[in-house]
């Protein structure tokens, strides 16, 4: 009987695709790769949003840290030890843990960084500091 493992060619191709598609030198992110969830970064007037495609997790599995000018996302989820009885006819993805870091741009309001997890996507919102900066807010004269 033929056994399929994670090194099958389909998953490798998918992985390579992921690297090729990621834009090199893009302004917000240099990556330190373990295993590599795909990311989108969006910019609006008020904030940057990082979206990480990380299906199959739960909220408690994530660890997000701000360190210097980097934000780092990792999972602490234990890799499921698949028992002998599970027979994969096809295996193109797994639930391995990962770690990915992004360089933060200037002018992020670090105290108000927020994260949420919805439909398998981790959203991290990085609000921009207003022009004056939160510490230099104009005080209204009454």
């Amino acid at each position, binding site marked *: 009987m033929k056994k399929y493992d994670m090194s099958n060619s389909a998953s490798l191709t998918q992985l390579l695709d992921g690297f090729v598609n*990621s834009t090199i030198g893009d302004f917000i992110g240099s990556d330190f790769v373990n295993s590599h969830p795909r990311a989108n*970064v*969006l*910019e609006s007037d008020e904030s940057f949003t990082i979206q990480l495609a990380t299906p199959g997790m739960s909220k408690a599995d994530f660890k997000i840290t701000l360190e210097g000018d980097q934000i780092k996302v990792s999972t602490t989820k234990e890799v499921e030890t698949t028992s002998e009885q599970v027979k994969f006819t096809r295996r193109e993805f797994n639930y391995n843990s990962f770690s990915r870091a992004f360089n933060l741009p200037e002018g992020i309001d670090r105290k108000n960084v927020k994260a949420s997890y919805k*439909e398998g996507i981790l959203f991290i919102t990085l609000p921009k500091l207003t022009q004056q900066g939160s510490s230099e807010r104009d005080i209204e004269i009454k």
Partner: protein
Amino acid sequence: MYNQLATRRRANALQGTSQNSYQPQANIIENENDWKLELLIPGFTKSEIKMAIENDLLVITAEGKESEIKYRRHEFHSGSKSVNRSFKLNDKIDRDKIEAELNNGILTITLPIAEEAKAREISIS
């Protein structure tokens, strides 16, 4: 024998979904009484996902709304946010009892093996 649920890669969707749709990654797990098909489709709600059986094909499609905010980096759902993948069903699968569940971006489809198709031992009398 185990390749009966082989993936059918169709060049373009037969049913008019957008051309930029991508094929999500899939795991297929074979159990004694059913087969589980796990599809990686983060970012979709239940109502955006459609499953249909067309002849011998199980067709899974999903269309989502694109963000209108500017992307600085676009590694997934680039092109368009739509998904399309089909699997060929073999004769053993009980089509009336196929069930699906969406959980944190993973669509798990249970394909039960029909009673009459299950392996059984025949005793010699």
